[in-house]
């Protein structure tokens, strides 16, 4: 059919057919193939990063939610137990300088056993005496129970309860009775009226502030509890791809995960240990005192009552880090972390109040206990853990100490900008001599100094940097005048980088 010699000749000729393509061909091929190569490595790295941050955020949210639930359950305290808890609280308050608004007669009344279970009318009478005394300028004396009552009264100024309702409420427990009494018209006003000009202003100011802090009304106490919750952590979405994408051929950016764990605490100075002191403006966080009582009304008494020392708590953090060598020895380190601080303090029992529900206002026969905001009295009944969650942006420089390639050592130092995400910290109110939660007194933005010693361990293309780290808050934890304490963290830092 055809001569195979022809095909063979054509094959031989075509074997030698070669051309040189233009350079754009390889460039296009490289562009088409190279992203595929990069995509193969990136998901492993960044998906782990994303998953880690999501897990951290979800865990934090779940933890905070559980913590709020546990607080909300503590709504009922037997009358006897309340009296027992209030008694030592008042006893601790003896001889301690607080505000002029509280006087010895009241203190004595609260110290006396069984006073906590007194009827509402009796408490009102005592408080009216307290107001009268305070108007005379008596400066000394701690009155925790009265503070509780006053706070409760300020929270429910418009209760509008009748005397029968008050008494029926008072039958529930001593604190309920006090709350009802304060809610009665005229009784609570006695305190403010007799407080004198300066004191009266203070009371009004305090009332106004407490109104703004707490939801007025009985039912809204539940809302006040829900208001304890800190802001929800936003989904961490900060990817450092932009960092890795910066074309720096000689000293490129490198990214990785970073984390650490250690101990954190709350120090009033760099080396001193903080105490929850019931001085004028000091407590664990001493916050509310300065808000509720102006500085002019503070006593000059130097006597102090240590309510609790702040003990260190566990702290850990996790995040992403990017580093760029600037020279042979210097390198810049940036990061985005979520850090958890904690500190512990010893508090007394939970002090709660009963509030009437709306149905109780309609039908006085049914009195339903409604959860209200819990307080913790001063004491040594339990250990409470203050928790703080910060989103941090650390900027640090690293200086290589030695030139050894086997185990390079770095000195690390820098600044950390932090934003408070959530907290459940307790703060001491020396008016009421109780601990309670109020995130509004915390500085939302913090600036800290960090330093550490880092050793780099090369391991199959992955750099592991680890070493001790110390971080000290340059700004105070609480807002101005509320306290001088700073957050301190010390622990081990671990960084894994490609």
């Amino acid at each position, binding site marked *: 059919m055809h001569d195979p010699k022809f095909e063979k000749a054509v094959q031989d000729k075509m074997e030698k057919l070669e051309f040189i393509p233009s350079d754009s*061909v390889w460039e296009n*091929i490289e562009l088409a193939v190279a992203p595929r190569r990069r995509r193969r490595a990136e998901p492993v790295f960044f998906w782990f990063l994303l998953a880690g941050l999501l897990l951290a955020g979800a865990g934090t949210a779940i933890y905070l939610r559980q913590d709020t639930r546990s607080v909300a359950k503590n709504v009922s305290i037997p009358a006897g137990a309340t009296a027992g808890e209030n008694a030592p609280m008042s006893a601790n308050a003896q001889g301690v300088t607080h505000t002029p608004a509280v006087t010895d007669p009241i203190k004595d009344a609260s110290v006396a056993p069984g006073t906590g279970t007194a009827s509402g009318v009796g408490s009102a009478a005592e408080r009216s005496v307290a107001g009268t005394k305070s108007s005379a300028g008596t400066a000394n004396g701690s009155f925790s129970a009265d503070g509780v009552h006053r706070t409760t009264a300020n929270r429910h100024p418009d209760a509008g309860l009748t005397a029968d309702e008050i008494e029926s409420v008072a039958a529930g427990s001593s604190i309920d009775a006090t709350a009802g009494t304060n809610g009665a018209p005229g009784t609570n006003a006695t305190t403010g009226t007799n407080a004198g000009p300066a004191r009266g202003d203070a009371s009004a100011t305090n009332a106004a502030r407490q109104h703004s802090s707490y939801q007025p009304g009985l039912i809204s106490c539940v809302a006040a509890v829900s208001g304890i919750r800190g802001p929800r952590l936003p989904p961490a979405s900060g990817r450092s791809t932009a960092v890795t994408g910066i074309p720096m051929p000689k000293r490129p950016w490198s990214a990785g995960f970073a984390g650490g764990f250690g101990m954190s605490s709350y120090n009033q100075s760099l080396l001193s240990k903080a105490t929850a002191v019931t001085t004028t403006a000091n407590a664990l966080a001493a916050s509310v005192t300065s808000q509720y009582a102006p500085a002019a009304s503070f006593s000059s008494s130097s006597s102090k009552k240590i309510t609790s020392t702040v003990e260190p708590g566990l702290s850990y953090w996790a995040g992403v880090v990017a580093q760029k060598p600037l020279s042979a020895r210097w390198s810049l380190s940036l990061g985005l972390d979520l850090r958890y601080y904690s500190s512990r303090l010893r508090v007394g029992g939970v002090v709660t109040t009963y509030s009437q529900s709306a149905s109780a206002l309609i039908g006085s026969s049914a009195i339903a206990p409604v959860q209200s905001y819990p307080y913790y009295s001063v004491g040594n009944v339990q250990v409470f853990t203050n928790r703080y969650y910060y989103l941090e942006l650390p900027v640090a420089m690293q200086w290589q100490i030695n030139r050894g390639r086997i185990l390079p050592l770095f000195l690390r130092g820098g600044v950390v900008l932090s934003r408070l995400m959530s907290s459940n910290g307790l703060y001491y109110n020396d008016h009421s001599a109780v601990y309670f939660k109020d995130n509004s007194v915390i500085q939302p933005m913090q600036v800290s100094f960090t330093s550490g010693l880092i050793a780099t361990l090369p391991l199959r293309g992955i750099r592991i940097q680890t070493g001790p780290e110390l971080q000290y808050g340059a700004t105070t934890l609480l807002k101005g005048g509320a306290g001088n304490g700073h957050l301190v963290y010390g622990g081990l830092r671990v960084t894994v980088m490609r």
Partner: protein
Amino acid sequence: MGANEVVMRTKVRLPCNAYSDLNVNGNNKDRMDHHQLVKDCLRGNAAAQKRLYDHFVGPMLGVCYRYTKSMVDAEDVLQEGFIMVFRNLYQFSFSGELGGWIRRIMVNTAINYLKKNSRYQTDLLFTDGGLHPVTDDDPEVLLSTKELAELIRQLPPGYQTIFNLHAIEGYSHVEIGKILGIKEGTSRSQYARARALLISWINKLSAINKNENSYARPKV
């Protein structure tokens, strides 16, 4: 041969053993080098990919050139083919020759390109031609490689494709029928026409070369 002057001679395991590979030496060491090159490419080594490209790009562009009508189209096919090579390199079985495997990808890419490109679609309508001319000529191919390639490229696209597949790549008419979606007889008749036409052009051009010692493009 481009940047790399390494030429290896090894037979390509094509269907009819019709085409030899680039490996001229044919020893095991070169094969091992190719295997190592493939492994490096699979690890994402950009330098290895560039070496593989430089090694095979010249002959592969020649293959693409024979199936298309312009160098631009040939480079498009070449680019698409090498992307396919790198993306499917993990499918390469180390038992065969790398050059033959890449060549098959280039041929398939070229055929797909012709099918997709509207410029070639109308000319790729293969019809049964009935009787086809029988040529018993045994022309001596005295043309240069590029002259012969130019003549092949002057064939109508349908003829050109079947001639390339059968005469040069070594595919049987049955395989060509499956590849192009035509009957075996159609492939045979088309090939006979293409062959006869090409032989006539070769004879004509050879005569011109002899007489005038110059190149004249035949009129199709």
